[in-house]
């Protein structure tokens, strides 16, 4: 492992293997994802993309392998998580502002309550995603795109260094998509790292710098212009790969 002063990689994955019962979902994954760049994780259904994100968050048991987030200026990086909007309980009695304020909880630690400056900071994050008018609205009254932007604002409130996103553009309208990608590019200019599970092949070259093609195993990972080739795409999306892991 590279122990230089400022590690150029934000996420390092080595020999990661995850299996549900007897079926492998990720097999011997080796990855080094660059800091300060927008990385897309792509692959067919069941290829293990969401599993990779969840493994990075430490949420699922693994058969083998190690995931590490090299320190930034001697400190452990903060990981922000933007889930798919279907995974949330939208009838929960919280407002948009409440949800975003939750992003500050990690910094507060146990027992300490959110202060006024935390709530003000949450409003700032809402402004960045264009949701400030919805601050007091209960979350079930939002459209899909608005829900996505709420979660994004929450990750911003976490003051994360690394943003892990699960299909941030799924089910959002074009205007929302543009505003999200603008925000991501702004994050990049601040030196933040974004790793997003992405589904739309046509937008990869415009939106992302780095792409990781996965189909249970890593097919290819690197700069978009080098890796995003027809040959690699065929290898990734070819159905025969699934299950053929030995």
């Amino acid at each position, binding site marked *: 492992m590279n122990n230089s002063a400022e590690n150029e990689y934000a996420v390092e994955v080595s020999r990661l293997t995850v299996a549900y019962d007897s079926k492998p979902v990720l097999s011997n994954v080796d990855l080094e994802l660059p800091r300060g760049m927008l990385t897309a994780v792509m692959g067919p259904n069941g290829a293990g993309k969401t599993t990779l994100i969840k493994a990075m968050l430490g949420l*699922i048991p693994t058969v083998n392998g190690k995931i590490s987030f090299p320190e930034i200026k001697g400190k452990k990086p903060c990981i922000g998580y933007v889930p798919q909007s279907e995974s949330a309980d939208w009838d929960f009695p919280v407002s948009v502002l409440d949800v975003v304020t939750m992003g500050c909880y990690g910094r507060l630690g146990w027992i300490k309550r959110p202060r006024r400056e935390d709530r003000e900071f949450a409003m700032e994050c809402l402004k960045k995603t264009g949701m400030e008018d919805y601050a007091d609205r209960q979350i079930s009254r939002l459209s899909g795109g608005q829900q996505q932007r709420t979660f994004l604002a929450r990750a911003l409130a976490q003051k994360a260094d690394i943003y892990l996103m699960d299909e941030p553009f799924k089910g959002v309208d074009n205007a929302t998509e543009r505003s999200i990608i603008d925000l991501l590019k702004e994050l990049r200019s601040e030196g933040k790292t974004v790793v997003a599970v992405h589904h739309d092949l046509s937008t990869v070259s415009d939106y992302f710098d780095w792409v990781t093609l996965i189909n249970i195993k890593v097919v290819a990972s690197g700069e978009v212009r080098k890796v995003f080739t027809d040959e690699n795409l065929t290898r990734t999306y070819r159905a025969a790969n699934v299950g053929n892991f030995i």
Partner: protein
Amino acid sequence: MTVFKDYTFIVVALGCLALGGISGVIGSFAVLRKQSLLGDGVSHAALPGVVAAFLLTGIKNTAVLLAGALFSGLTAALLISFTVKKTKVRFDAALATVMSSFFGLGTVLLTCAQKLPDATQAGLSAFIYGQASAMLKSDVLLILVCSGFLLLGVILFWKEFKVFSFDPEFAVQSGYPEKPLSLVLSLMTVITVILGIQTVGVVLMSAMLIAPAAAARQWSDRLSVMVVLAALFGGASGVLGAYASAVGEGLPTGPAIVVVSGLTVAASVLFAPKRGVISRIMKRKMNRLRLTVSFGGESKDNEGRGNN
């Protein structure tokens, strides 16, 4: 083995057999529709009906009390259904709310009944714990007849129930009438619960509906096989429980049946091929072996670093 020649035992065992069997069958649909605890709810909600029937008619006849139970059980089921459909309150919360307030009403009525000259406290105990050992031939006859009708209903509506239980959205899209079907299934569940309360009582009724079906599910993915197995498991639990109660002095029947049922579930969950826990653990171990062998390296049995 003289117990087998005992008339009372035969009556009780037959009743438990029938109840266990039909609970398994109807319970299969409840479990598949993720409404397992409906049995628990309906059995508690039946109390006000039972007491009201007694208060209104002055008769302590089983059929009358059961009719009262049926009425209040069905009302509760309808209220729950309505709440879930029309508000954001979910099934489990609606169930808990309706069943406990109904039970509260039942205890109020009970204290009314206790003030009457010929009322006895024993009624409530029997309701809560069941009184299988006090089953009469007439009770068993009622159970057999009702079970017969329920079984007939299941056979007649087999196709509809099957689709509706596995994939209600598809059923609606395919034109199956959702409301009547749901109503019929709920009605059948309520009837089964009311019948079963006599054997195992209110608290344990949910296990009667769920356990045989849950056990059966481990052995087959096909509904027909599952339902038949559930009937067998339920019936067997009933008989074995009745037998254990007969030979073990003072062992109450309801709990005995539930324990047997529970053991069936445990055995099925552990030992069933494919779905069973032991089978899956063995498969997983074999696969890890293959994975590590093929990569020629050490395998760390890393059971995860995060909360799950």
